[in-house]
């Protein structure tokens, strides 16, 4: 049996006794050193840097409010709706916790998409930040997974039928479609078994993977530093004294904190003025109400699938749409590897692609809401 070599005693001169205590034992100051030395470039597009932080803040809100909801929520078809109703009407500030949870989920997906497009247009995804992009894209998909699984949990009519339609879509994929549908639903139909497993995905599987990936994403950002837009980089290269930076801590952090407070204010405003509605309890035996559509962030895909004809040549239209979205999603994830050099000509094409994708998503979403 060997024993670990005893660490040499450290001495600290820090004024704060708690920090001194930590510093003498764990080298607290050494741990914080990278943060103290980390700088953030200052230029006219610096405000885009806040988006990632706001998304992280909203995720933290999700975790905290999610834990509070878990105190009362019951994940079964017989009790889910009633438990959420109880949270909304009987539990002290239950309405606030649930409304903040639902609103911050939607805002988080919005800021995650905005963050992704800002990174794309500022070319921050290119070498050496391929892995940061990759982890970020997976995090975006996980956020969509959170949204899809969480939508069903109140077990109300809209969620029930939206889940029914939503799980039918992957069911169209050749070969793996049917087993995938059965895996997602826990059977052939959307039942209490679906609710139980969606609950499992929502509170255990997805948070676990997401936390690990957020850690990796932040570590990569810390390691690689903040990306500077190519135009700004060129200007600074031409005139080095014009380069401006600010320390991450406390200057940028204090600004980020301001952004978080503003986000908190917006969340409070939305939760108090527009509490998240509950609807009526799901009844599998009644026909689907008219105008069933998924959450807003899936509407562009849903509307596209609706517009594709039933048959495109010999291929099933819906299947073609699903495969199309799959291919586009894969290309999007692999953009840093397909885009080539940061200053290359392909970047112009990718920017155009980004503009088109953004316009398409916005256009189809608006169309989806306006179409009968």
């Amino acid at each position, binding site marked *: 049996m060997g024993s670990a070599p005893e660490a040499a005693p450290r001495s600290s001169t820090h004024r704060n006794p708690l920090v001194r205590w930590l510093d003498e034992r764990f080298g607290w100051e050494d741990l914080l050193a990278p943060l103290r030395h980390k700088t953030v470039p200052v230029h006219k597009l610096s405000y885009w840097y806040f988006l990632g932080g706001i998304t992280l803040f909203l995720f933290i809100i999700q975790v905290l409010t999610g834990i509070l909801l878990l105190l009362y929520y019951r994940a079964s078809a017989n009790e889910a709706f009633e438990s959420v109703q109880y949270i909304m009407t009987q539990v002290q500030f239950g309405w606030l916790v649930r409304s903040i949870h639902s609103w911050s989920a939607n805002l988080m997906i919005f800021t995650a998409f905005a963050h992704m497009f800002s990174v794309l247009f500022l070319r921050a995804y290119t070498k050496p930040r391929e892995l940061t992009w990759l982890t970020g894209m997976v995090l975006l998909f996980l956020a969509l997974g959170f949204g899809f699984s969480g939508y069903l949990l109140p077990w109300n009519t809209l969620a029930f039928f939206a889940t029914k339609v939503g799980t039918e879509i992957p069911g169209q994929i050749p070969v793996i479609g049917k087993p995938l549908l059965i895996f997602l639903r826990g059977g052939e139909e959307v039942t209490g078994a679906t609710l139980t497993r969606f609950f499992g995905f929502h509170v255990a599987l997805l948070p676990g993977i997401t936390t690990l990936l957020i850690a990796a994403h932040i570590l990569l950002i810390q390691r690689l530093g903040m990306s500077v837009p190519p135009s700004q980089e060129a200007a600074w290269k031409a005139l080095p004294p014009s380069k401006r930076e600010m320390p991450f801590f406390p200057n940028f952090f204090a*600004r980020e904190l*301001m952004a978080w407070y503003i986000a908190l204010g917006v969340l409070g405003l939305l939760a108090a003025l527009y*509490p998240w509605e509950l609807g009526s309890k799901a009844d599998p035996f009644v026909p689907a109400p008219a105008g069933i559509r998924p959450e807003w962030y899936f509407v562009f895909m849903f509307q596209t699938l609706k517009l594709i004809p039933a048959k495109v040549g010999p291929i099933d239209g819906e299947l073609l749409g699903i495969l199309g979205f799959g291919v586009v999603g894969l290309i999007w994830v692999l953009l840093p590897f397909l885009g080539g050099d940061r200053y290359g000509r392909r970047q112009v094409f990718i920017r155009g692609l980004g503009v088109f994708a953004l316009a398409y998503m916005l256009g189809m979403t608006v169309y989806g809401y306006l179409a009968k």
Partner: protein
Amino acid sequence: MAGALKMKLTRQLLSLTVAAGCLLLPATLWSAEARPQVAKSSCVECHSAFPPPTGVSEAQWAADIHAQKGLSCASCHGGDAKDPSPEGAMSKKAGFRGKPKRTEIPALCAKCHADGAYMRQYNPSLRTDQLAQYRTSVHGKRLAQGDTKVAVCIDCHSVHGIRSAKDTRSTVNPLNVASTCSRCHSDANYMKDYKIKTDQFAGYSASVHHEAMVVRGDLSAPTCTTCHGNHGAAPPGVASVENVCSTCHVFQAQLFDTSPHKAAFAAMGAASCITCHSNHRIVHPTDKFVGTGNEAICTNCHAAGDPGFAAAGRIHDDLVKLDEALKRSAEVLDKAERSGMEVSQARLEEAQGRDSLTKARVTLHSFQPDKVEQDTQAGMKIAAKTYQAGLQALAERDYRRKGLGLTLITILVVLAGLRLYIRQTESKNQSGGS
């Protein structure tokens, strides 16, 4: 070379023909299966070229349920439908009897339709008492007296294109019965000899029963035959009106039987339900029907000072009070719901309050104010509770908004503090740096 090319072309043409045949054959078989199988008839071949009334188109005949069940023209008209010559097909020898007289039609149809053993093979649940019923009807009685203007089978069921009553295109489908009856009964000129009104269809078209049938598509809603009978059609007598209405409105009839009106109406020779609700133009009743106001039906018999007048006023007041209380509660709950408050429990109770009002409106058929009051009081308690729930929800909404205001002020203070901190830190750094 040319021969080989020709052979190749011939082979390709043959293959194409076989392939096309393989594709078309199932399609042909399917379309043949989809059309009802009707036996070829030499009668229709000629008569399809004639104008009505002797003309019968192939499509009309193919839609007829008798043709679909394998019957031919000869089943009613005699003769030989297979004989291609008119002389042979319509010969006396083949039993041809031509167009039946109107007075003969009920008996002719009854030859099959009154034969239980025969009808069982086509539809075991179909009644076979139509002729017996018809003979008890006003139509049947008058026909027996030689009045050929009255309805016989074909007037209601049509002829040569008779569809099953379940078919929505049938003239006797519940959706079409009223308009079928109205063809004669709304024709003032046609009905002038009978000295009966011709406004039944206009009245029915404005009734709740018509609305239920046509607007809501409720085929169980009453139409002419529901109250008058179909084959035995006759107006219900004064004494039997209540029995007719009570086949659906069970509780109202039971309560009416216990009411002081039962004996009073009988003494007056007034028919029960229709005295207040009318017969064909049965409009949606409102609380104004009962009471002492201008629109109240009660004032037709009751005058100020008599106990019935006071009772009517009390019943009306109780109903109106509950209705207003429920409306007031609904208004508050609507307002709370629009503000995003969760009031589904109160909504559920509110529905129970509405049930109490409905129950009270049924109970009023007892014409006993105390009984009605029992129901309205139960509803009033619920309405008061749901109204309070709505007020509480609105108070909670205001509390939330005040909380939001305080939170936003706190956030603004923190933001200002942070801004100040940033400014101080950066100016300190700048002065330190310089």
